[in-house]
C-alpha cells in the first residue's frame, strides 16, 4: 500500500469509521478537527489530531487550504473527505492532486459533472438510462410557465446545483409558479451561488432506491446492490434498508444494471451511489443523481454483503484493483439502519445539542452502532445532529425489523433528546412492517406521532 497516513477531513461518526478502516489496513490516521472537536472521539482515537480552525465549519472543515496544510504538515499522503463538508467539492480533489496527496474518492471531473444535476441528467440519458421527465435549464418565468404546462402540474422546480433536498419546490398549480420560481432561484443563489433551475415531473407515489457502485482505475465496475431510502423527513433520510423490499426481481435487476451502466460509462473510480426514483404507480424507474462519496447509509450494504466499503475506497484510491468481481458479490439477509439524531420529536424535531449524561447503545451479534458519542460527550451546536447510526441484520426483513425494535428499546440516551421514541413508533407501524411506504409516508407519520405523543 503506498498510502501510509490518511488525513481524515471530517468529524463525528464517519471520522471514527474512517479511522477504524485505516487501522484495519495498517495505515495511520490523522484527525483534522475544529476547536470544538479537540476532545472528540475521532481526535482521541486517531493516531494524531490536528486543530484546523475555529468551531464554525466555514472556518475549519470547509477550508480547503487548512485541510491541505494539515495533511502536508503531518506527513499524510492521502485525504479522506467522508460525506458532507468538502466531500463533493471537486476543488478539494484537485488541490490534493496538485500537492501530491491521494484523494480518497472519485476523479474531480466526475464529481463536477455529477454535482450539476442538469449535466448529470444529460450525461445519463446519453447512456440510455431513463431520467425523470423534465426540462433543461429554465431561463425565465415565461419559459417556466410554458415548460410547466408541458410537463403538467404538480411539477418540481429544482436547482441544478442542488443537493440534500435544498432548492426543491413542489408547484401544485399555475398560480404558485411565479412565487415558487422566484424563491427557488433566490434560495439556490444563496445556498449554491448558482440560480440555474429546471423542472421535473412530480411523482407522488415514489420510492427512493439507490445502488452502491464501486469502480477502479482499471475499468472494473461492480454494483453492490440497492438500498431503499424512501423514509425521509424534509428530504433527509431517516431509515434505510437493503435489499429494497417489495420490488420485483426483474425491476431490481434492471435498476442494479442501470447503475452499473452509469458507473461504467463515467469510467467511475472509487465508491459512488446512483440514485433512482421508482414510480410505484407505473412500475417505472428513473435516474435521479449520482452521489460521488461514501454515504451515511453505507453500513446496510456492508451488513448484507460483508464488504467493507471504506477499506475498499482506500484500496481503490491506492491504485489497487477491486478486491472482488461482480459474481463474487453475495447478498445474504436483510439490514436496516436508523439514524439517531439529537432532535426532539415532541418539539417539532428541534435540534437538541448539549451534554450526554448517559450513553448506552444496544449490543448483540446482529447489532452495529456507528457513533462518536459516549457518556459525558457534549454535542456541539455547530454541526449536524447525527449522534449514531443503529444497524441491525436478520436472515430476512422481519427478523431485521424485530431486532431493530429490540435494539431501539435497549438504547438509552440521557441528557439530550433524540428521535429514538419516534423511531420506535415507526418500527411498530403496520405500513412500515408491510413495506407499504413511499417518500411522503414519513411526513404523515410525524403528524400522527405528535398526536399520540
Amino acid at each position, binding site marked *: 500500500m503506498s498510502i501510509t497516513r490518511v488525513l481524515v477531513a471530517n468529524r463525528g461518526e464517519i471520522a471514527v469509521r474512517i479511522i477504524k478502516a485505516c487501522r484495519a489496513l495498517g495505515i495511520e490516521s490523522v484527525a483534522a478537527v475544529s476547536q470544538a472537536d479537540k476532545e472528540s472521539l475521532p*481526535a482521541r482515537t486517531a493516531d*494524531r489530531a490536528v*486543530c484546523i*480552525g*475555529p468551531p464554525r465549519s466555514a472556518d475549519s472543515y470547509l477550508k480547503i487550504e487548512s485541510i491541505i*496544510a494539515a495533511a502536508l504538515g503531518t*506527513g499524510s499522503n492521502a485525504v479522506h473527505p467522508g460525506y458532507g463538508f468538502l466531500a463533493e467539492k471537486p476543488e478539494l480533489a484537485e488541490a490534493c492532486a496538485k500537492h501530491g496527496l491521494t484523494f480518497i474518492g472519485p476523479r474531480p471531473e466526475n464529481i463536477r459533472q455529477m454535482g450539476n444535476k442538469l449535466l448529470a441528467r444529460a450525461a445519463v440519458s446519453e447512456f440510455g438510462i431513463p431520467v425523470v421527465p423534465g426540462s433543461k435549464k429554465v431561463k425565465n418565468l415565461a419559459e417556466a410557465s410554458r415548460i410547466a404546462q408541458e410537463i403538467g402540474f404538480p411539477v418540481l422546480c429544482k436547482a441544478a446545483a442542488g443537493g440534500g433536498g435544498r432548492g426543491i419546490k413542489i408547484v401544485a398549480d399555475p398560480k404558485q409558479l411565479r412565487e415558487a420560481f422566484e424563491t427557488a432561484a433566490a434560495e439556490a443563489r444563496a445556498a449554491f451561488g448558482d440560480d440555474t433551475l429546471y423542472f421535473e415531473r412530480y411523482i407522488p407515489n415514489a420510492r427512493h432506491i439507490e445502488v452502491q457502485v464501486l469502480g477502479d482505475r482499471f475499468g472494473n465496475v461492480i454494483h453492490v446492490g440497492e438500498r431503499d431510502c424512501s423514509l425521509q423527513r424534509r428530504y433527509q433520510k431517516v431509515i434505510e434498508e437493503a435489499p429494497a423490499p417489495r420490488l420485483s426481481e426483474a425491476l431490481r435487476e434492471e435498476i442494479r444494471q442501470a447503475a452499473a451502466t452509469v458507473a461504467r460509462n463515467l469510467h467511475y473510480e472509487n465508491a459512488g451511489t446512483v440514485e433512482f426514483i421508482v414510480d410505484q404507480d407505473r412500475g417505472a424507474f428513473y435516474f435521479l443523481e449520482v452521489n460521488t462519496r461514501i454515504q451515511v447509509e453505507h453500513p446496510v450494504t456492508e451488513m448484507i454483503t460483508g464488504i467493507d466499503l471504506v477499506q475498499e475506497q482506500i484500496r481503490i484510491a491506492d491504485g489497487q484493483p477491486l478486491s472482488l468481481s461482480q459474481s463474487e458479490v453475495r447478498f445474504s439477509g436483510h439490514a436496516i439502519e436508523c439514524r439517531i439524531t439529537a432532535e426532539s420529536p415532541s418539539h417539532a424535531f428541534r435540534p437538541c445539542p448539549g451534554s450526554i449524561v448517559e450513553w448506552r447503545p444496544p449490543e448483540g451479534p446482529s447489532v452495529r452502532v456507528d457513533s462518536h458519542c*459516549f*457518556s*459525558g460527550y457534549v454535542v456541539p451546536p455547530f454541526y449536524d445532529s447525527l449522534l449514531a447510526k443503529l444497524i441491525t441484520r436478520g436472515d430476512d426483513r422481519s427478523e431485521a425489523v424485530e431486532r431493530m425494535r429490540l435494539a431501539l428499546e435497549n438504547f438509552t440516551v440521557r441528557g439530550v433528546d433524540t428521535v429514538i421514541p419516534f423511531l420506535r413508533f415507526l418500527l411498530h407501524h403496520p405500513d412500515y412492517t408491510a413495506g407499504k411506504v413511499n417518500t411522503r409516508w414519513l411526513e404523515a407519520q410525524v403528524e400522527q406521532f405528535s398526536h399520540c405523543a
Partner: protein
Amino acid sequence: MVSKSGYIPGTAAGSGIAAAPVARPVMSSTAETKEPVAQAKPARAEAKPIDTGVVEGAVAITAPMVGTFYTAPEPGAAPFVQLGGRVDEDATVGLIEVMKVFNAVKSGAPGVIAKICVENGQFVEYGQTLFLVRPEVVLDNEDPPE
C-alpha cells in the same frame, strides 16, 4: 486559546513540513462499537510536548490558522522578533504559510517577547501558542503592580 494538557499542542519541530512522526495507536482495532475511550484524558505518550511554560502575567500569541510557521520574512533574513524584543499591537511576529500563501501573524498585544514557543519552519495548528508576551506596563516607577 492555549492548548490544554492531554491534547498534543504541536509536533516535533525543526524539519518543517517533512513527515512528522505520529504517536502510536492508542486504541485497539476493529470492534464496530466500542466503549469510548471516555472520560480519562487520552494518553499521548509519544507526542513531544512543547514547553509553552508559564510566564507570569504573560499573554499568548496563538496561530490564527494551521500551516507552516516562519520566524523571518525570508530565509537568511533577521527574524521579525527576538526574545526580549518589544512589539506593539500591530507588529508582525511571524508568517504562516498555507498553500504557498504567506499570512502575517500580528502580535495583538503590546509588550515584550517573554518566550518563543515554536521554531522556524515548524508546522503549527490553529490556536497553538507561538509566543508569550509580557504586557508592557507604563508606570512612573519601575515596580510592577502587586
